[in-house]
């Protein structure tokens, strides 16, 4: 299972594991917010507002 496996892989005592877990989650959220979600929004045309001139993607 994924969640127990993650807990086992993280080193150190429980409080270190918890701290590392928070840092890992923050890093994942940052990657999603800065790179993945902007790409998804543009690629799938969510929230477009321009007239399709044919020149602009």
């Amino acid at each position, binding site marked *: *299972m*994924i*969640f127990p496996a993650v807990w*086992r892989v993280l080193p150190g005592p429980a409080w270190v594991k918890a701290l590392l877990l928070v840092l890992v989650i923050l890093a994942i*959220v940052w990657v*999603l*917010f800065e790179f993945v*979600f*902007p790409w*998804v*929004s*543009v690629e799938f*045309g*969510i*929230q*477009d*507002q*321009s*007239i*399709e*001139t*044919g*020149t*602009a*993607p």
Partner: protein
Amino acid sequence: MPTLERTLPSHAAPRRQSGWAAAVGLLGELLIIAGVVLGLYVVWQLFYTDIAANNTQQEVVDSLDWVAPLEAVTAGDAITVIPDNLKFDPDTAPVMEEPAFMTTFATMYVPRWGSDYVKPISEGVTRKDVLDTLGIGHYPGTGMPGELGNFAISAHRTTYGKPFNRIAELKAGDPLVIETEDAWYVYRVTEWEIVEPTQVEVIAPVPDQPGAEPDDHYITLTTCHPMYSAAERWVTHGTLEYWAPHDAGVPAEILEDAS
């Protein structure tokens, strides 16, 4: 010093599970992760893009040294209002060269949207480089401010700082004020329409009459419709009432309380 003896906690011992139960458990975990990611996408789209884009757009406005200081404008002190004898006919309006892609060349004031409304206008209408970050974008190849033809601009109605959020509140006669380094251009709203995303004739030199010779100084705002959708486009048109040299003062229109 006592010797620390590591013992394996009993709950860490691998439990015996049937293959079926393990598969269901794994599926459940994947669904939980998918749900959290989808939830995060909504938070990002509805809240985070506004914060990020508003910050960027405010920085852009602040970096333009020719922009009228809004604090002074709203406070109403030490402001010269453009006198009538320095308001000039649209036909004599100065027209700037079309700038390079992503260059911010103007700002926009819309009193109907609040006396503190000022947003930058930049060249281009691509999502990633202009509309999602810099705010209002100018359709390349359409007229520049004051030009005989159609000054056509686009912006988000929701999310990413939502510059055109309140476009449905604009009424005929409302001022749309464009400021460039050299001049002020005061347009007035004439009409609005809802069109399909493919109806490019709304940004023609004469709106909705592709191929016609330009006969007036138009402005056209396009944004999405309905809100939170990309199905249609809300389009608002206007015409130039007058222009004034930038150092003549500040148009009385942006000092008015329209609401």
